[in-house]
């Protein structure tokens, strides 16, 4: 690869020092979750070994250290996406919980019968089902921005969609199936012209490319730590501070209050108002470290690396008979994801035979069944890349795919 940073990068990730089935492990499922570098694992271990304690209330030293680590992680993550203030960063369990938080707070408070929510046809179930439920509860309409066969959103009908009681728009920044990067800055700006509040599902963008929430001007913005080298069980909601301040809490209990009497309570300041109960302290600390690790490499460098891998893969796979990449004509791809079909081989058979070669890919609908329907297939096989992948992984995938053909025909 062009950049030397990636030469020995696998050494930073202990999982790659294990052999699986006697072969070097080739991990091509980072769109599902990513592997963790030693820095992140060590930071989690450090917390449990050296300063395990509850935060925000201890008077003693290790609790003060833990609180500092937790809050430093928050500001670190805020800077990473260029939030105006770290107080705009709410820790959640994952992107899914962050979407549910907004559906149950801002959206429940502000949307009324007859209003419509705009989504796209390429949403992950986690940015679709919460809105279906809310729409049923409040009698809202759901309208969808359609996609073209190459995976790009059809934007010329946007003005129609944005008329008629449209109050809220929730859409993915990058498709987890096709890798399409949606032009969300333009879409958000158009939405704002119509007074529409916006949520961006950034689960597949923040890990793979530079993202600036002030530049995008999103109102709500969600992502998951485990997809960006961080631990599982920690995610982020970013929201403009005025929105957070005017929202009712999501969950109620300890930590989210400022003052409690027997019959009533006052809420804590944001963001703590939205962090009821003891949070995933180790997870937040680990995610802060993951951000450090990504910053050391540089998000623009990571983005370029993935695009180079993507181009290399497309080139290699063009030699395979009956190999079809979905959304290949699409010019706006992160490069992090390749979804494909291969002859009439079923994705499960492909994935099982590749597993025998110690290659991990995803087979299925990728939590995007409506999109699969649009592509006209029940399932695809998906290979997705991250910092620790290199061209040798793609060569092994290529060899594995030849093996698939030889086993099944």
């Amino acid at each position, binding site marked *: 690869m062009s950049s030397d940073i990636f030469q020995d990068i696998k050494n930073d990730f202990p999982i790659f020092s294990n052999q699986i089935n006697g072969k070097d492990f080739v991990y091509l499922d980072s769109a599902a979750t990513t592997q963790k570098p030693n820095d992140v694992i060590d930071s989690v271990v450090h917390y449990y070994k050296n300063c395990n304690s509850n935060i925000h209330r201890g008077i003693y030293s290790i609790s003060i250290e833990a609180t500092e680590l937790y809050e430093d992680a928050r500001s670190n993550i805020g800077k990473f996406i260029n939030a105006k203030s770290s107080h705009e960063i709410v820790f959640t369990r994952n992107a899914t919980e962050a979407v549910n938080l907004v559906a149950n707070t801002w959206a429940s408070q502000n949307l009324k019968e007859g209003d419509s929510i705009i989504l796209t046809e390429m949403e992950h179930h986690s940015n679709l089902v919460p809105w279906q439920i809310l729409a049923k509860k409040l009698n809202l309409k759901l309208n969808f921005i359609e996609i073209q066969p190459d995976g790009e959103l059809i934007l010329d009908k946007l003005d129609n969609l944005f008329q008629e009681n449209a109050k809220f728009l929730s859409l993915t920044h990058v498709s987890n199936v096709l890798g399409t990067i949606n032009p969300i800055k333009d879409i958000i700006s158009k939405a704002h012209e119509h007074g529409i509040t916006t949520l961006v599902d950034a689960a597949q963008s923040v890990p793979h490319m530079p993202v600036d929430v002030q530049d995008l001007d999103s109102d709500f913005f969600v992502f998951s730590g485990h997809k960006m080298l961080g631990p599982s069980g920690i995610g982020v909601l970013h929201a403009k501070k005025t929105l957070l301040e005017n929202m009712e809490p999501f969950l109620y209990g300890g930590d989210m209050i400022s003052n409690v009497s027997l019959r009533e309570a006052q809420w804590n300041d944001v963001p703590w108002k939205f962090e009821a109960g003891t949070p995933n302290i180790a997870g937040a600390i680990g995610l802060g470290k993951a951000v450090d690790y990504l910053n050391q490499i540089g998000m623009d460098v990571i983005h370029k690396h993935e695009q180079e891998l993507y181009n290399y893969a497309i080139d290699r796979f063009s030699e395979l008979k009956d190999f079809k990449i979905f959304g290949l004509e699409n010019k706006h791809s992160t490069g992090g994801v390749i979804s494909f079909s291969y002859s009439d081989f*079923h994705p*499960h058979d492909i994935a*099982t035979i590749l*597993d025998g070669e110690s290659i991990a890919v995803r087979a299925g609908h990728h939590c995007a069944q409506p999109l699969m329907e649009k592509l006209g*297939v*029940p399932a695809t096989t998906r290979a997705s890349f991250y910092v620790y992948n290199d061209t040798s992984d793609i060569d092994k995938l290529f060899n594995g795919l030849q093996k698939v053909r030889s*086993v*099944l025909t």
Partner: protein
Amino acid sequence: MSEDIYKEIILDHYRNPRNKGSLSNAEISAQDNNPVCGDRLSIDIKLEDNVVSDIKFDGEGCAISQSSASILTEMLMGKTVDELSKFTKDELLEELGTPSLGPARIKCALLSLKVLKMGTYQYLGAELPSDSDN
């Protein structure tokens, strides 16, 4: 789990499925989909004196689900309805020669058995036992 599960018998039935198609006037008939994998499977059975006299399956899906259906149809020919209702997953898995399919793929292998049980219990007018082999 690896390519080891693609035993010769499975590949043979995948490439050359036996008893593929459908039967009109079948006494036992059932179908099921697994939307997660996109597997689709139907089984039709004709009975004569309570014994399987003809059987066909149809569907689409992975090599494991389709070959298992093909193999199952061969195993069931000549069996009584009572034997169909008592047919176990171990009998099928043993014939497939892949005892160690793993949790991810065992559902594929057992889809055909599930469809068989659905059809048989429906024919008998009985409830599918909740601990049935599916």
